[in-house]
């Protein structure tokens, strides 16, 4: 089994904010090209890797499984420029309490360069009364790049995107911390799956998809699923790790296995097959309860066209949507391996054998 850590570190070191995924898309395309039969790009920029069935069944057109991992990241956008300071707004869900003091990269469109900066919190007396003492709302936070107002005016424009710049760090025992592990860790897991499939026979076509715009409008999952029209669809995403401030039924220990969704976004017979395969190959899995929404691409995929049977597979992660997300590399390997074994387990008549209770 190859070590996917270097690839994942490179994945979280390139930009790819929701709606602006081109840089990370390019990297994924390169990595997947030798692993699939054909790589293409959707009109919105999602990456589609097609690996055709290696076992021919009795039917002319093999059924297909779409594995969706969103590649877009949460981040910020420049909303106003005053002197050398940038005011910002969020792209995706961000708690403004995690921002002050965070290093960022401003993707400056004026000169087409990436600029280092820091998110700063102005003194309370420079903020309207009563707003500066406690949590400083996002609209008052600014970015300082150490440049002069003249340089900033030339380089940066309103609407420019801002990524976190906290560097990835490996921790002892095989853990990785950094920003945007949600959901690049799943892209890495899907890549592990494709590597595993090189030595496996499968009678279904496989569509590996890195979707755009999950963090904002599910733009990629709706459209790629419509275009590909798979027989079934699996979303791979992050779930909550147990850690500071996070406990209870929605949270899972890092490094102790991955999770299978249970709820309206998950088609029961897909859950059942994943569970059987996991037990057979001894990968620890836990039930992830999603009473209404899964808040993953599965919510969009199941509603595409006439409806697609869908599944959610998740990797536990601490501190989701901060610049210091934390995952266990072995959970990523497990997710990749389980996906590959699940795909290999699909018989050509899998769908025909399904019976609803």
């Amino acid at each position, binding site marked *: 089994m190859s070590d996917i850590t270097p690839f994942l570190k490179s994945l979280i070191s390139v930009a790819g904010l929701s709606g602006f995924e081109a840089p990370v898309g390019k990297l994924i395309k390169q990595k997947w090209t030798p692993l699939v039969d054909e790589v293409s790009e959707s009109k919105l920029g999602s990456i589609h890797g097609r690996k055709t069935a290696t076992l021919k069944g009795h039917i002319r057109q093999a059924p297909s499984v779409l594995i969706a991992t969103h590649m877009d990241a949460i981040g910020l956008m420049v909303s106003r420029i005053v002197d050398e300071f940038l005011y910002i707004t969020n792209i995706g869900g961000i*708690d403004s309490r995690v921002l*002050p003091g965070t290093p960022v990269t401003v993707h400056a469109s004026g000169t087409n360069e990436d600029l280092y900066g820091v998110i700063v919190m102005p003194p309370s007396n420079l903020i309207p009364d009563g707003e500066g003492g406690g949590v400083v709302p996002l609209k008052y936070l*600014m970015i300082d790049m150490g440049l002069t107002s003249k340089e900033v005016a030339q380089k940066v424009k309103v609407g420019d995107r801002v990524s976190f710049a906290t560097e990835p760090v490996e921790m002892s025992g095989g853990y990785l911390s950094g920003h945007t592990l949600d959901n690049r860790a799943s892209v890495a897991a899907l890549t592990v799956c494709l590597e595993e499939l090189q030595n496996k026979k499968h009678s279904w076509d496989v569509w590996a998809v890195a979707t755009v715009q999950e963090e904002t409008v599910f733009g990629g999952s709706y459209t790629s699923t419509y275009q590909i029209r798979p027989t079934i669809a699996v979303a791979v995403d992050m779930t909550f790790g147990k850690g*500071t401030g996070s406990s209870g039924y929605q949270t899972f220990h890092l490094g102790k296995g991955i999770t299978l969704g249970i709820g309206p976004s998950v088609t029961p017979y897909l859950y059942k097959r994943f569970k059987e395969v996991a037990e057979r190959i001894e990968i620890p899995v836990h039930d992830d309860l999603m009473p209404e929404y899964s808040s993953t691409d599965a919510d969009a995929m199941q509603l595409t066209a006439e409806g697609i049977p869908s599944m959610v597979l998740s990797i536990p992660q601490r501190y989701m949507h901060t610049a210091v997300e934390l995952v266990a590399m072995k959970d990523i390997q497990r997710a990749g391996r389980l996906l590959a074994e699940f795909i290999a387990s699909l018989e050509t008549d899998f769908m025909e054998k399904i019976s609803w209770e």
Partner: protein
Amino acid sequence: MLTIGKPQLDLLEKLCNAMSVSGEEGEVRRIVLEEVKPYADEVKVDALGSVLVTKKSTNKKALRVLLDAHMDEVGFMIVHDDGDGFYQFQTVGGIDERHLVGKQVIVGKDHTIGVIGAKPIHLTTSDERKHTIDVDSMRIDLGPEGKAKVGDRATFATKFKRVGNSIMSKSIDDRIGVVTLIELLKNAPKNIELCLSFSVQEEIGLRGATVAGYYFNPDLAIAVDSTPARDLPDYEGRENFTYNTKLGLGPAIYMANSSAIDHPSLVKFLEETAIKNKIQYQLRQPGGGGTDAGAIQGARGGIPVVSVSVPHRYTHSPISISRIDDWKNTLNLLHVALKNINRDILKR
């Protein structure tokens, strides 16, 4: 003119990236000792850990001038091992807790990387997000298999960066003063006996300087520090009248703060020196904040003091910003002032 070139910036980088939390300044002390030994006549490490350096004058009756810069920085101490890689910590020195969640830290002598995590936004309520997170409820997370020792110190993990005329780093306060003192030692004027205190424990009550002032018993002292600028724009576009200093306007000369009333004759002498030598300077708005001058002023029967600072923004946070030109002007103002200083200027 003395310059700020690659050697000075490289030394500042090395010092800023070192960990030197108040009470455990070993990493910076080692670098300082190495730098000062070739140039000093006397070097000692005192009872608290400050590095005290003397450079003698050719004149036996020379004025004895103490320059102080503090080696310590704000940071954290690990106070409890919760297991599973989680460590409870306390802040050391004045840290605004709103800067902590979502940041990387380095822990212990090996600089083991950890993170201060936060509950995911998905699991918070909108009411919860209106309240700041207490340090008591935060943990440093070294990963489930990470190890630290109770008592280990920790600090922000951000690395020094230079961007154009700016320095962006943790601990500019007061490593920029430390390098300034080292440069002044290397270029020491012969007319004075130059005493240097690289002081410990400034951030937790000016402790190193308290005993260093007593030890040296100088004729006068200058604290060389870095002061918060607070020169940001007002959200609603009103003029910001409450800046301490402004970046880009040169060294900040103090007149008074909460630790000391600066000696009026020294303030006047520095201003006149700056004007005469066409060195840009600014007067720091009197008000809060303190420097080691406060402790030195009260040593023995009293010592005339003044503070001079390189301004920085975002004090005691993971990344502060200073201008290289301000630093260069600070270094040169002090150098010219030392060359011209004499007993007469202390007469009121």
